[in-house]
């Protein structure tokens, strides 16, 4: 371990750094989410106009979009950490990938849940086999597969690398899967997309949506770091620095 960046890749130095960052992210998360909620509920109209008028229920959008975006973003980050771990053999990367997965799965579930609840008043059904929804469902399965594989393997080293490989295979397949769902008939693909024009959205709504997403992002930083600290403690139980830390805590309490 001689390269400068690898100093932070060492669990011993990352652990306290994460400990200092966690409260910061909690504060940021709370602030952004509260602002977004205030803006979303009090600074936006009760009704969306347009060809397809939507009443108050459109306020679900603030968490719906936030969780949907975060679910996809977190999967990308997870795969990135997994790939770094496989290539550079840094233990911390695997731990990060591992710590992201539950939060990502929760966001995916929430995107599905809020989307379904939204679908009921606007489409009259909780579920439809719309490509976007189906893709999100598949993403949920990919998260669950990653978590299930990791926890089925007792040896943490093998678990890390096997799950990382699975995540990478998943990433290669994801475009193909999403594409096949979006375009089940290869003869006519272009006509399908119901584009979501972000530009046409009202400024206040957009602000609340983006702030909420930012808040959820900060939240996922906080939970991921908390989880990774737990993993580090478990994995490094034998290391001297962990024992010093535990001893200090024992004296403190």
């Amino acid at each position, binding site marked *: 371990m001689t390269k400068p960046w690898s100093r932070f890749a060492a669990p011993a130095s990352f652990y306290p750094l994460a400990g200092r960052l966690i409260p910061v992210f909690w504060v940021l998360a709370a602030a952004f989410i509260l602002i977004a909620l205030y803006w979303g509920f009090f600074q936006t109209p009760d009704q969306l106009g347009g060809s397809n008028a939507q009443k108050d229920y459109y306020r679900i959008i603030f968490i719906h979009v936030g969780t949907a975006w975060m679910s996809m973003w977190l999967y990308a980050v997870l795969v990135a950490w997994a790939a770094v771990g496989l290539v550079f053999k840094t233990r911390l990367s695997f731990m990060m990938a591992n710590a992201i997965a539950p939060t990502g799965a929760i966001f995916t579930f929430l995107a599905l849940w809020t989307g379904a609840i939204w679908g009921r008043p606007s489409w009259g059904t909780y579920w439809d086999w719309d490509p976007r929804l189906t893709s999100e469902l598949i993403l949920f*399965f990919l998260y669950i597969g990653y978590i299930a594989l990791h926890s089925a393997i007792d040896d943490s080293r093998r678990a890390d690398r096997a799950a990382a490989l699975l995540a990478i295979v998943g990433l290669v397949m994801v475009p193909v899967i999403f594409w096949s769902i979006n375009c089940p008939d290869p003869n006519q693909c272009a006509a399908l997309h119901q584009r979501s024009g972000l530009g046409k959205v009202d400024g206040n709504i957009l602000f609340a949506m983006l702030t909420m997403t930012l808040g959820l992002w900060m939240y996922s930083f906080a939970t991921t770091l908390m989880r990774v600290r737990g993993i580090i403690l478990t994995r490094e139980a034998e290391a001297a620095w962990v024992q010093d830390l535990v001893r200090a805590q024992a004296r403190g309490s």
Partner: protein
Amino acid sequence: MFTVFWSVLHRDLLLAMRRRTDVLTTLFFFVIVVSLFPLGVGTERAVLRVLGPGVVWVAALLASMLALERLFAADYEDGTLEQLLLTDQPLVLLTLAKVTAHWLLTGLPLVLIAPLVGMQYHLTDSSVAVMMLSLLLGTPVLSLIGAIGAALTLGLRGGGILLALLILPLYIPVLVYGAGAVTVGAASLGEAQPYLTLLAAFLVAALALAPLACAAALRISIE
């Protein structure tokens, strides 16, 4: 180099011949699952004709997946897998040989029995032809992708159902275009051509990439 490919292939086929029932079980599983649906859904011809392609493909997915559980397991348990890993041959080639043998034993029979299933669901002749073609192109992809999952779950508790969880989502593109081809092919074979081309493209890509991933997975699991 190819002697190695052949000798592994030959070994696996020989082993299968010594245990003929293992091959038949996959086939029977496929037939049973396909036959269960008319029992659950009712036997109206119009309905069955719509369901046929999807059901056959889902059943093929499930049969392929169940058989995959044993792809590396036997070799893992008796130690021949680690000996394979220690030969001076590229592991990718050995993996490819094992997957090929597996497909010959579990995928090809499904292709051959497809006309029978087509009859059960009152499919048109051209549908049946497309079904055979699409299975011929699609089942190797299933074996190739599934082999990665099989390698990853080697020797784990609850391997079977875990494997299902890992690889069924990855099977979706094959399912979509395989079943799509059969549905479209009801009228004429030509309609299905873009679907079949896509399946062929998947097969080429899977042939190129899956053995690499699978070999890497084996190296991880063997520790």
